[in-house]
């Protein structure tokens, strides 16, 4: 990381090679050893590979920028609250941002964590009015995406999304179309217990109907226990590879046997539970599922494993042991309470650090919901599911039991295809909205009038304030303004600013498109 600060990008190509390019693989082209090093370092530091992603985070410009903006009170508040609402939620429009900013950071964190005190009836009513069919995966996705877009409890939905990526299941394996609704039951469980103790969450997910089917625990029998759930419970949900043996998998599977799914509920059948003596992670006895969960939630590796997942998802990737220690302590001191761990995380200096700021790429859900929410769209969001799928994330259908790789290493979210989909989503959202049938574009003229936006400069600043925390470098702001004010050919609608000047609609809309398509907006 320090190296990035001192590294000076050389001009490429070096002038000597400008006029006569050399054969690319010729041995004669080999440079002396001294010239080799900087290039290697460049590739390592600015490399586009996933492993290198962390290295380009928190470069010198950002660091200085952060320190600078931290010295100017109001702007720093805006930046920090914007960061909080993106990480602990899905971003916000101007009014919501103002509400949280007036609270101050620590009260804002309280409001996010104490979500029960914030009514969310309006969202529930709007959702109910859509009469979605929760037996259909598309409608399930829409139901959740719109919850995220409309909720007044953003952290609750974000936390549910976190759990969905960890304790995951897919509608593709929950017993067929008649039982797709099992995914919603699982989702409601994760929401209801999002901040509960880890033990309660693990107990609940173990006997969750979708999970029982997805990882085959329901197929476990007294004599031949199915290994699938036991293995993933240890590898992916609690302690991670290296902390258990294949014997722990088979013994754990025997201890977990007994739970089965029937319809939309589950039941425990003592007759299918293997009641022999098991030897599991150093414990012996006629262990059952409660013992397995107790042993795992108290395993020394569990708080570290969980803290690493939470920190990578909410703060930045590749955390150090020092970064994780406060979360681990909170886990141990709170009887494994996730709310306490999250409080420690959100109030940590790391969360508010320059290193955390814009250090992750937005996930498809964060990107799609974020723009929809911040711009206050009011349509029925019919097109949200297909767009998030094309961006690489289908809710209720993770790629495998490991969840989404992008949750751990956010660079995985970005490639040529998903990038184009992000931009096409923005284009459509601004031009026609995401509702079914009806074209319902964002009404820029009335927005300009309502907010008394005086000029193209003020227009860019207005949107940059809540979409980018006001953090758009001057030369880049100029690029947007100059696009907006560039003459356009052909007759078209125009948009008039408060200063009386009019500009073509495609230019005004285009400037907002560019802001949402910008590199800065791809980051969270």
């Amino acid at each position, binding site marked *: 990381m320090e190296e990035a600060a001192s590294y000076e990008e050389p001009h490429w190509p070096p002038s000597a090679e400008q006029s006569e390019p*050399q054969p690319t*693989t010729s041995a004669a082209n080999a*440079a002396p050893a001294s010239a080799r090093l900087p290039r290697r370092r460049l*590739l390592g530091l600015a490399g586009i590979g996933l492993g290198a992603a962390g290295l380009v985070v928190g470069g010198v410009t950002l660091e200085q920028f952060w320190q600078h903006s931290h010295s100017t009170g109001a702007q720093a508040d805006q930046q920090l609250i914007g960061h909080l609402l993106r990480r602990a939620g899905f971003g916000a429009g101007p009014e919501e941002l103002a509400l949280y900013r007036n609270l101050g950071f620590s009260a804002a964190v309280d409001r996010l964590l104490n979500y029960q005190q914030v009514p969310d009836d309006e969202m529930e009513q709007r959702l109910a009015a859509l009469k979605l069919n929760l037996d259909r995966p598309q409608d399930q996705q829409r139901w959740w995406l719109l919850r995220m877009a409309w909720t007044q409890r953003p952290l609750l939905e974000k936390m549910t999304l976190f759990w969905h990526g960890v304790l995951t299941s897919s509608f593709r394996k929950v017993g067929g179309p008649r039982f797709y609704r099992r995914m919603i039951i699982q989702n409601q469980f994760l929401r209801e217990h999002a901040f509960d103790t880890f033990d309660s969450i693990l107990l609940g997910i173990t006997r969750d109907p979708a999970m029982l089917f997805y990882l085959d625990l329901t197929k476990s029998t007294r004599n*031949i226990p*199915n290994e699938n759930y036991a293995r993933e419970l240890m590898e992916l949900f609690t302690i991670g590879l290296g902390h258990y043996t294949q014997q722990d998998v088979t013994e754990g599977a025997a201890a977990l046997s007994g739970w089965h799914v029937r319809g939309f509920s589950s039941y425990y059948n003592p007759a299918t539970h293997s009641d022999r003596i098991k030897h599991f992670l150093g414990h012996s006895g006629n262990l059952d599922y409660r013992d397995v969960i107790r042993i795992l939630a108290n395993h020394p590796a569990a708080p570290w494993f969980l803290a690493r997942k939470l920190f990578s998802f909410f703060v930045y990737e590749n955390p150090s042991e020092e970064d994780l220690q406060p979360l681990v302590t909170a886990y141990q001191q709170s009887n494994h309470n996730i709310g306490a761990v999250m409080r420690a995380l959100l109030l940590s200096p790391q969360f508010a650090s320059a290193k955390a700021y814009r250090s992750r790429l937005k996930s498809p859900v964060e990107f799609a919901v974020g723009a929809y929410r911040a711009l206050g769209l009011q349509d029925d969001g019919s097109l949200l599911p297909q767009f998030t799928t094309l961006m690489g994330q289908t809710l209720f259908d993770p790629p495998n039991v490991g969840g989404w790789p992008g949750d751990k290493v956010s660079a995985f979210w970005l490639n040529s295809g*998903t990038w*184009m989909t992000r931009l096409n989503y923005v284009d459509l959202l601004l031009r026609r909205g995401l509702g079914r049938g009806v074209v319902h574009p964002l009404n820029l003229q009335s927005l300009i009038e309502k907010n008394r936006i005086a000029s193209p400069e003020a227009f860019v600043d207005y949107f940059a304030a809540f979409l980018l925390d006001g953090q758009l470098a001057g030369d880049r702001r100029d690029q947007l303004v100059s696009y907006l004010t560039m003459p356009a050919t052909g007759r078209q609608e125009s948009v008039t600013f408060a200063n009386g000047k009019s500009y073509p609609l495609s230019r005004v809309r285009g400037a907002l*498109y560019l802001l949402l398509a910008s590199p800065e907006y791809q980051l969270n």
Partner: protein
Amino acid sequence: MALSRRALIKDGMLVVSAGMVMPSVFSRALLSARAQAREGVRLAQAASERTLIVVQLAGGNDGLNTVIPYTDTHYYQMRPTLAIKEAQVLPLDQRLGLHPEMAGFKKLWDAGHLAVVEGVGYPNQSLSHFQAMDIWQTLDLSGNGREGWLGKLVAGLVDQEGHPFKALEIGSQTALALSSLTTQVPTLSSLNSYRLSVDPADHDGGASRLQALLKLYNSYPRTAPYAALLEATALDAQQSAQRLHQVANSYKPAVTYPQGPFAEGLKILAEVIVNDLGLRVGYITLGGFDTHANQEETHAQLVKTLADGLYAFYTDLALHGKADQVVVMTWSEFGRRVEENGGLGTDHGTAAPMFIIGSAVNRGIFGEPPSLTNLDDNGNLKYTVDFRSVYATVLERWMGASARDVLGGSFGTQNFLAAS
């Protein structure tokens, strides 16, 4: 104005035009090739336009029910309900036969275009999907690798023209196998969505908005987060979409592909190959092989999708006169336990067969089917062929690349391709 790093390189010459947004994919590509040349990496350029298509079978394919040891009584003892009956097996030789739903592969075998490498694996399998997938893709046996073997190959194959279609991934995420420190791989799930929309109110067809967009990416500070990734992605997308859509209408499939995303993806790869877009490595994944329970129907459907899809793909290429240029290789992170479990399924295993398809392959069974009686402590097969020797074979004998440089060691070769 100082010459920027974002110079356009065209026909090996630098072209700099004021006020123009210059695609740095070209300069970056050239740069990486030069950097590698300097470092003495010898990833040779293959003389011909040969293509490798890699098919990942995600979830752990049950090798024993794919290439079936149908004369081994232990197979039937260990799998009382899941074993495929001898009469249904599509025989390859006196010992081994294909799953009955793999008629497409049987036809390729009969025509001499299919090779099977038996018993492929590596030591000390942890039985974790994720560690196994990482190892197969990065060759780092600790499972902590971050650069893929195909990514290294593709980065080394960049030529002066920097063709953006050197490699192509079908899907919504670039596989770890293709990830590299220097090169982006175009990744798409459908041709139609692989283009940037235009605002119809823009009477210039979106040209000025696109120009402004690329400028935003070009001028994004290098020290800002994810700068290299964001810029490379934008330019890679722009270049590859343009190139792809220039020719999108000149391809007509010569066969009817089966329904479904796997065959649809293969069709995209065929289109790119037939249109001579310079594809060297294509990558596609078929998932769902983690059959812990009720395996019979699921697995039958999956191997049918695999065999029918690749048969259509091969036939399509053959009818377009391209079959000689393409070799297909399949892999899966592990096979499955020899003994079936109590849920009519199989748990995580170890060694499994790989398939190699193409006019250039030597038909036959290579490697040795692992013993069904001499198992490891977990009841799993002992591998007989190191997966890296299969990679080395396609690298050396098909791609004309140095296996030692790509794989970081020597692991031998197999004879499913002739040594040139």
